[in-house]
């Protein structure tokens, strides 16, 4: 692994679906080694498309990166097969908890180790079980019967089975109770601190995400409109008004970020 430069860099990518709909229009971001970077934005802003572009999943949805480049660990990765990334230590936890419903929890986790050639899979399994003790209790149940929070743990555990250097975490808080959200985020923080796993975190819930992240990007209409250290973003009055719902006085300027956004069909 080369030690210099960001671990992941996305440089000015454009993504088009069905050669028709331009969803990302020159999005740029970078994630330093060992960081937790948040990607914030409303529904439809392009967060999930960014994640899928990095993970090379667009092709199976008839989308493609038409401009720009994505580098991970010093090598260009757009154009690889999605399954190659797991071997390189980059894992995606997809939005919406994609556990394999008919496979048992343990089989779900074992699939996560598919790309590994070493014999230490059983050891990793135990480590995941000690991180998520509830998964161990349910190891023989089909994952489709787990609760939402347990499924989220199952897919994060599955990503960990590949022993990743970096995890792309897409909307982990979606549809979960606040306490569970805190639990999942603090596990993320623990993995970051203890195992040195780098995270790129896409979240609508900006309030929670900015508490755990070190740096943040705000995405609107397929490009980054604001970036900065998490603390600075959390203090920004416009972001507070539009995304955190905290400070109504910013509305007085009559120019929230959302209102200033140009209509999509003109840009």
């Amino acid at each position, binding site marked *: 692994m080369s030690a210099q430069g960001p671990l992941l860099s996305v440089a000015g990518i454009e993504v088009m679906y069905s050669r028709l709909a331009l969803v990302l229009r020159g999005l740029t971001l970078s994630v330093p080694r060992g960081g937790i970077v948040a990607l914030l934005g409303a529904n439809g802003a392009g967060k999930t498309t960014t994640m899928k572009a990095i993970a090379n*999943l667009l092709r199976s949805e008839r989308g493609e990166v038409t401009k720009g480049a994505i580098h991970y660990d010093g090598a260009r990765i757009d154009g690889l097969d999605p*399954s190659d*990334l797991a071997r390189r230590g980059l894992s995606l936890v997809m939005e919406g908890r994609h556990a*394999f*419903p*008919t*496979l048992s929890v343990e089989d779900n986790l074992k*699939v996560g180790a*598919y790309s590994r050639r070493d014999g230490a899979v059983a050891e990793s399994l135990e480590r995941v079980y000690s991180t998520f003790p509830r998964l161990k209790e349910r190891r023989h149940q089909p994952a489709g*019967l787990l609760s939402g929070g347990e499924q989220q743990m199952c897919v994060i555990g599955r990503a960990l089975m590949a022993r990743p250097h970096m995890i792309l975490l897409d909307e982990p808080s979606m549809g979960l109770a606040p306490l569970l959200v805190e639990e999942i985020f603090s596990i993320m923080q623990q993995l970051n601190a203890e195992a040195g796993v780098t995270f790129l975190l896409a979240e609508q819930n900006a309030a929670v995400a900015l508490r755990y992240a070190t740096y943040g990007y705000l995405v609107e209409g397929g490009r980054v409109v604001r970036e900065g250290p998490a603390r600075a973003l959390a203090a920004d009055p416009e972001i507070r008004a539009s995304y955190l719902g905290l400070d109504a006085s910013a509305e007085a300027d009559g120019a929230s970020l959302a209102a200033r956004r140009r209509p999509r069909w003109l840009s």
Partner: protein
Amino acid sequence: MGDFSFFIEVVVGGLLSGVMYTLVALGFVLIFKASGVFNFAQGAMVLFAALTFVGFLEFGLPMWAAFLLALAAMLALAVAIERTVLRPLVGQDHMILFMATIGLSIFLEGFAQLIWGTKVRGLDLGISDEPIEIGGILISQFDLSAAAMAAVLVAVLSAFFSYTKVGRALRAVADDTQAAQVAGVPLGFIWAVVWGAAGFIALVAGLVWGARLGVQFALTLVALKALPVMILGGFNSIAGAIVAGLVIGVSEKLAEIYLGPFVGGGIENWFPYALAIAVLLIRPAGLFGAARIARV
């Protein structure tokens, strides 16, 4: 002979012929389960496999060598199909993939006959077709051997899916393709494995049916027999294909013997389809069709 032992004989005969239907249906189910594609070319693969086997036999090879070579040909075919047909169509609608398999089936039928010729060939597997008597019931030795072969095949396949790493990955792909890719499962390889397994099944089905009907173009029509089996058992259930094959085999024989005389016979050929339509009305997903596991 008593009425009852005659009844048993009909049932046993039906079960054994049902195994032959199951054999064909399994190939369809496997591919449908893994990729959601109804593989129209399964019948053509049966013909291709049987012709290849007989072709190698005609070179004077022993049966085991011809079998292994035909199997290798089917595996190579699976890899070629993945490269040239499936990979370029990733992400396309299922209907487009279905049409691609129609094209594939026409190509395979022509290609097989181009290489091996169009004349009807007999296939003698060395199993005598003399009925033997077990407990006062006459049973066809050939059907019995075919059933045993099918049972071994099913046991091998289900052990493969349940206990191997690739089998587990294959079930993961069937559940959620994108999530499996993200977890590091290479989709192209898995599809080649699935089509290879379907090719293996086609080879066994081709041998059994070829020995029955002769190795000829009509073998592709055997695939039609699999349709009612799949409708009855569900398109994505291996257990369903097995049970439904047996049910169809038994019910068509019973219908022929006991209902046939009232309508002048000839029921056997269409009874399975009538049964399939009845099932469609009552349980559209089939008896064993995917009841998706979901927490509400």
